[in-house]
Every structure is written in C-alpha cells, then in structure tokens.
C-alpha cells in the first residue's frame, strides 16, 4: 500500500503541485482565478513554450541546445528590421527568421554530428556567435517604428498591423498566441507519440548505437532534431517581436533558462523521467503561474527567480529519486 501511494505521488505529484499552487494564489488574490488572468498566464508562457518544445526535441535525441536563447534574440531583431528597415511583405517577415533558425540548427548539427564536438560545448560556442551576430547586425540598438538610423535619417517602416495581431490579437476571445501554442503542443505530442520520425528520435536518444545497429540513420535523425530546435526557437523570436511590437536586443537571453527549466520540470510529470511534450507544457504552465501569482503578491521579479529555481530543484529531485529507485 505504501509503495502504491509512493508511485502515485511520483506520477501525479507534479500535477497536484500545480493544482495546489493555483489554489494557493486563488486564495491570495480574488483576481487570480479569472478567465482574463488565466489566459494572460497562457499568453505569457506561449513564447517560452515554443522554445521549450525545441529544447525537448534536442534532449529527446540525447543532445542539448544552449543556443536557443540567442536564436530567439536574433530572430526577434531580424523580424523587426525586415519591417522597420526594409518594409518587407509579411510572408518574407515570417519566413526569413525561420530559415535563419534552421541555419543555426544546421550549424549546430555540423559541429555536433559531423565534427563530433560535445553538444554542450558546440552549442555554447554557437550561442556566442549568434549573440554576437544579432548585436552586430543591430549595432546594439533595439528596433522600433521609425527609429533613427546612424546616418541621421529615420527608418522608413513600421511594424505591420497584421503581424502585431499574431502576438496581440484574439480569436473567439482567446489570445492568438495561446491558440498557436496549443496547436504546437498537440502537434509535437502527436509527432512523438504517433509518427515514425518522432519514434526514431526517441529511440536514437535512448541508445544511439543500438538504434544505429537497428538500421536507423541516426546522424540524420540528430541533425533534424537540431534543425527543429532552431526553428522552434526562431518562431519564439517572431512571436516575441509581435507581442512587444519592437525588436528588443537580447530578448532571448532569459528564454534559455526558462525553457530548460520547463523541460526538466516536465520530466516529473506522469513520472516520465525523460523529455516529453506534455510535461514540458505543464512545466511552462507552472513557471507562468508562479511568476503571475507572485507578481500579484508584489514579489519582486528577481525574487521569483529564487522560487522558480527551487521548484526546478524539487522537480529534479523527485524525478531522480524515482529513476534511481526504479533502477535498483
């Protein structure tokens, strides 16, 4: 009976914890548990969730992508400059950053899969490079409507209205980024659960050599995983630009830690013990709920970091205690 209870705790503990946190904040502030605030929370996590889906993919193939934050930054400023500096049509504004994200992924894959640099080191180096590129490209300035240019003139363009709607608009009363996020979560979940390519990624991450000796093209699988990671990060960047209505410099810097934390909290959801999309989503939700609720309680944003970090430690502790028990 005791063992039963314990495994029940491992399985549903994370979800119960999220429930408790929500309950707690609901008692603290009557405004917390309202439709408006709950959709606010979902909207606030939509960008991080996209980045975290990318991180989940790279972790699934037993890799790691530290460059996602930098890719978000680059993609945000590229998106903004395409409109503000170059007045490009919406299609171009959406496609170019995604292509750039894919290119960053290809560079990562080249270093990790082909040259065989360990993933953490390779993506750390790429993170530096991409960060440098995004600052060099904007000369260190944030991008906004009709900004003054170094030659004394002002930029010709403004952020496109349709583009801003992606990040700020609502569809049937639901913020559009929330709809995008839910679609992406469902699609990624279906990808891993029901498609051949998703399964190939899971098996490659499980044991690369055994997967290779089963006839999988593991190098291709890993390459695609890094490309997907870059693309999801760049979509995060696009959403960011659209949400804020400008191209903020270093926008993605906090995204790396946030998304990685969401993924690792996700390990503990349903006692999965491995990267999984549903867990990642709930991890992001927990982070969003914490930030939102604590802000309402007038906790400073830097103090919330302490709490977010502690929650991550708790999730990791539960996960690894469980995994080690299972091994024994």
């Amino acid at each position: 009976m005791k063992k039963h209870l314990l495994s029940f705790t491992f399985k549903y503990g994370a979800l119960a914890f999220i429930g408790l946190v929500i309950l707690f904040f609901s008692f603290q502030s009557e405004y917390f548990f309202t439709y408006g605030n709950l959709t606010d929370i979902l909207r606030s996590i939509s960008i991080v969730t996209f980045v975290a889906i990318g991180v989940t993919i790279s972790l699934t193939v037993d890799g790691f992508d530290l460059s996602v934050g930098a890719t978000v930054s680059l993609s945000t400023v590229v998106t903004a400059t395409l409109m503000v500096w170059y007045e490009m049509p919406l299609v171009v504004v959406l496609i170019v950053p995604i292509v750039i994200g894919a290119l960053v992924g290809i560079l990562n894959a080249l270093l990790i899969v082909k040259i065989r640099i360990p993933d953490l080191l390779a993506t750390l180096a790429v993170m530096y490079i991409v960060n440098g590129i995004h600052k060099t490209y904007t000369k260190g300035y944030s991008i906004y409507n009709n900004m003054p240019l170094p030659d004394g003139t002002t930029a010709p363009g403004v952020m496109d209205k349709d583009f801003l709607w992606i990040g700020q608009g609502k569809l049937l009363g639901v913020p559009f980024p929330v709809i995008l996020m839910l679609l992406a979560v469902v699609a990624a979940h279906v990808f891993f659960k029901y498609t051949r390519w998703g399964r190939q990624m899971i098996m490659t991450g499980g044991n690369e050599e055994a997967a290779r000796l089963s006839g999988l093209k593991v190098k291709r699988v890993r390459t695609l995983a890094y490309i997907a990671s870059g693309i999801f990060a760049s979509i995060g960047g696009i959403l960011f630009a659209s949400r804020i209505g400008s191209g903020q410099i270093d926008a993605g810097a906090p995204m790396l830690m946030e998304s990685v934390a969401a993924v690792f909290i996700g390990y503990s959801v349903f006692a999965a013990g491995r990267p999984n999309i549903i867990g990642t989503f709930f991890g992001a939700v927990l982070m969003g709920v914490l930030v939102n609720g604590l802000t309402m309680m007038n906790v400073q944003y830097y103090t919330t970091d302490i709490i977010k970090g502690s929650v991550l430690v708790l999730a990791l502790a539960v996960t690894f205690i469980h995994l080690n028990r299972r091994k024994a």
Partner: protein
Amino acid sequence: MSKAKTVSELNMRSISKSFAGVPALKNVDFNLKGGEIHALLGANGAGKSTLMKILSGAYETDEGTIETGDGTYSFRSPADSKNAGIHCVYQEVDTSLVSHLSVSENIFLDQLANSMGNPWLKWGSLHDAAREVLKRIGLTISPQALIRDLTLSEKQLVLIARLLAEEAKFVILDEPTAPLSLDEADKLFGIMRGLKDAGIGVIFISHRLPEVFRICDRITVMRDGERVLTERKEDIDSAGVVRAMLGKSFDEEFPKLPATIGEPILTVRGLEAGRRVRGVNLDVRRGEILAIVGLVGAGKTELSRVLFGADTAERGTVSVDGKPVKLGSPSDAVRAGIALIPEERRKEGILVRESVLHNLSLPILKAISRFGFLSGKSEREFANGQISGLGIKTSSVAQIAAYLSGGNQQKVAIGKWLGTEAEVFLFDEPTKGVDVGAKGDIFRIIGNLAQKGKGILYLTCEFAEALGLADRILVMCDGIVVKSFSRGEATQEDLLYYASAGREELA
C-alpha cells in the same frame, strides 16, 4: 594473509527475499568453506544473482541470517560485507575500475579512498606493494600501466589482485569466464586454485558446465528462487546438473533442424578492415548455418560489424543474392537484407530502457506507418506475433526490456529482424550470458530461420555450439580464416588447434 589461513566458513541460513511481493528467494541455505571452490548454478532468474547481491551487501535480506566464523551479520551495505572479508568480482569489470588510473591505484583503490589513511601518497611503496600482489597471481604487467590499456582478462586479474590486497576471505566470481578465451580462462583457473590454496572460499558462477566440473569442489544448483541441490562434484554428472537446473532432462542440447541448402546468398571476397579482418573470403548458402569459430580477439565481432556496415571495410566486396552491396552504414546493410544480432546485447542489440513493443518494431517503423503515422494496431500485432512465435516471456508488450532475462532479451534482439526482408542473419555470440533453457530456444529459432531459406552466419567461441549447429565451420585466427571443416569433420580439439595455432599454420 594470516587471517585467511585459519579455516573459515560462511553460512547463509533461510535467506528469503521478495521484490514487490514476488518472492525471488525462498528459504535458501548456502554454505561455503574456506579453501573450496563452490559453483553456483542456475538458469537466469533462478535467484543466484539475488543471493549473491545479498551476500555482497547490495541488497538487504528480508529473512534469514548470514554467519561467518566471527559472528552473525546482516549486511546492509557493500562496505559491511567487505569488512567481513566478502568480495565480489562482477562480470562488468569496467564498472569496478577507474580506467584512467594506474594498476596500483586501482588495486589499492579502497585504501586510497579511505579518508582515515595517510593523506600523502607514497608512489614508490604503492607500486612496490602492487607488484608484490601481482606477483602472487602471476600477472606480469607494470603497476604503472593504465587500466584503459589493459585487455579484459588483465582487468579481471587486477580486480582479483585488489581483493587479495584487501585480504578477502570469501570471493564471489560472477561469470568471470564468459568474455575470456580458453587460454585466459586457464590462467584464471590457475589463480582460482591459488586462492583456494590460500584458504579463501570462492563462489564461482558460470554457464559453462565443463569448466565447472574441472575447477570446482562442490556444486549448488538453484531453480525458481530455491536451492535444489548441493553436491560434491564427484557425486554428480553434468546431465544431473542440467536436469536440476531445468527441472527436466535436456536430451537434445543442440537441436539441428533439417534444412535444404540452396544458392549462395552471402558472398564475401577479400574483405579487409584494420588488423582484425584480413582478407576474409566466405560464402553462405540459403538454408545453411555457417559457423565461424575463434578465440576472443580473433576478429569475429569485427567481421560481423564490417559485414553489417557498422564499421567500414578498407577493401573487399560483399554481395547478397548475387548483387554487390555497398556497406556504408547499418541502414545500407538492412536494406540489402542483412541483419545483425550483436554480441553486446544490452548495449547494442536492444534498447534496455524502451519497451518490448518499441524494441521489436524499431527496424520496421517504415513498413508499419502510412504517411509517417505509425499504425498502433500493426505494431502491436507484429510484437504479439513475435512474443508468441519466439516464446518471449514478458508480462506485456509494454514491459521495459531491461526487466527481461538475458535469454528473452536475446529473443527480442532476434525478433525485431523477423519483420524485415532480411535474408542473411549474423549472430555474434548469441548464447553469451543466456541460460540453458533459453539457449535451446535460440538454437531452435536459428534452425527455423535456416529452414525458411535464410543464410546464417554464426560467430562463436563456444566450439561445442558450432559443432552441434553448423553445416560448415570456418576457423578464424588473428583476422584470417585459417581452416574450413564440413559438418561432422572436426572435433573440439581440431577447432582449438587451428584457432590457437592458426598463425604458425600459415607462416
């Protein structure tokens, strides 16, 4: 050594242990005397490793006591049992050694790790002490050598040197001979006799009966968590032991199923890769089982990996069914109709953390999906078909492969290929670490494949298996095929002669 010379005795009394309510050991008594070699036998899952883990302190016993000469113990940790003089050499030697440290440091690892000791290392005396211990087991390697540069058998001997240095009274050797060649095993037996003469009690776990009868004084057989017999080796024969292990007699050890032999399906010419595969020519016909025998290190595993595209060949051609194939990667080989069941089952043959279902469907993901979406129904149907067809004992298709016994894991590693178009099956030591009962099943599975007209290449260092199963036998030595025998032409002695003396034969 003075401690070990007094006659000591180890008694485990009424040991019981359950995991999640399932009894793994039921009232087991076990007795080990100082100065004897005591074999512990049993099919996988019989409970011998659980019993040994209780003895070495890795598990706690639910009931029962352990007594040594100095008192009754309940071992709660490996350190407790080490204090009582009980040491274990596990099969995976690498997990017990630090590969980038020297032999000396590894021998005295526990002392060095002990925080009570002298904080300063005296390298000179450390190496001297190590040399002394190495001399006692007749191992002529430098104490300064790094572990990672040693062969597997040398690493094993370093572990034995370690337990000598720690003045062990009782020693558990868990399948030490499985990865060794005959020469290396002989050397190990010499050392075991030395331990015995020094008054140390040795528990010897092995799946190879001949060596058990050669080296051991007493034999204990376990089955289904119970001790079924303990006899002096003079009082029992190998048929009796097998009967005790299986609970029934095992008359047909090597069932050879009749198969019609047809056209060549695999043709290899002048294959070269590194120093371990040097100009190999061979043909496997449809329905034929071709065995390649050789000692460990003869190049069999390397040959199988090159044939499967896992390693690249420098020269030579491979054709399947008359068509030349380019072997750049395993996926090329699979497409050409070649399947490999690798020696390192748990690292390469299956994914131990994944379910039986996902393991079985891995090579056929494309075939069971439409537009990239997997058909859960076809996947389960295929898996259930293999589970019943091959007799895989698993609680469900969702069972994690790590929890299956070695034999059942091996059946999964074979079964996953049966949904592919594979025409050539490469088996690399398929019975390694597999218990007697499952061995028979695996031989039957291989025989059935041959009957279906598949070509079988069976690479093994178990000469008896090759003699029992194969239609033809090639002997490999130092990367070269040195001799070919037809069925019934060779004896174990012939095979051993060519496998070990092959080099002189050629020169």
